[in-house]
């Protein structure tokens, strides 16, 4: 029983920073790199590598736009990302209830 639930946990969200990115994007329309960095308290390189991993899975996508003349990169969750994240949350909840 428990093994089945663990199978439902998404491997992509094994890492706390990747799960953190998804948590933040689930409740924000979009968020820029520096805000994400401050919230998660990580270095640029570390954050960038986790972002690109999630991007490869098409759980999030990058929005590039200009604010005035300054380029601004922000991130947004995809439909796929949303459902993967909510499946992961339900699996976590089940794990708690089955203890």
């Amino acid at each position, binding site marked *: 029983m428990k093994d089945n639930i663990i199978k439902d946990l998404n491997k992509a969200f094994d890492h*706390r920073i990747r799960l953190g990115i998804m*948590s933040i994007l689930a409740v924000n329309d979009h968020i820029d790199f520096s805000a994400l960095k401050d919230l998660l308290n990580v270095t640029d390189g570390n954050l960038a590598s986790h972002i690109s991993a999630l991007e490869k899975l098409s759980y999030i996508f990058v929005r590039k736009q200009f604010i005035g003349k300054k380029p601004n990169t922000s991130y947004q969750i995809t439909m796929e990302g949303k459902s993967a994240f909510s499946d992961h949350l339900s699996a976590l909840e089940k794990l708690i209830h089955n203890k």
Partner: protein
Amino acid sequence: MSDESSPIETLSEIRDLMARSSRFLSLSGLSGVSAGIFALVGAAIAWYILHGAPLYITRENIFMLMLDAIGVLILSLTFGFYFTWRSSRRKGLPIWDSISRRMLANLFIPLITGGLFCLILIYRHAAELVAPATLIFYGLALLNASKYTVEDIRYLGILEIALGLMSCLMTNYNLIFWATGFGLLHIVYGTFIYYKYE
């Protein structure tokens, strides 16, 4: 959220990140309490200016009442900002970021609309509705901003709107409604929020 941390810890960390990334959580209850005290003092001064008559703005009293209102506004904002700034420092959260900006924009758009609407009411000789209108628009502003800060102020907003609407119908008592909405409710709510979050 590696293998070592329990699912309960993981979920609470997720919930914390969701709240911190989308809501301004430094809002201090003391900001509400101080605003409430200034409002009560302001209402007492208004009562003195009006000699106990209902709160109608006339050519004779407009200057004194405006002065009183502006004094209450400036003191409330100054002390409100100070207590919230202090609370954000204590919690180690930023005071000026995309979240606080979003909250302030959502608060001030209905608030400034209300301010302009009150000036129009005076201009249109419907000054008895100014005090109720401040309650209604303030309530709408709180309702709007509550999506981006502590959720509890949503109910404060609804109460302010209800008081404002009742005050419209009972304009003889509008100073009492005003003192209840801006004074009493702020003190009660501020105390509640203070003990809940600090």
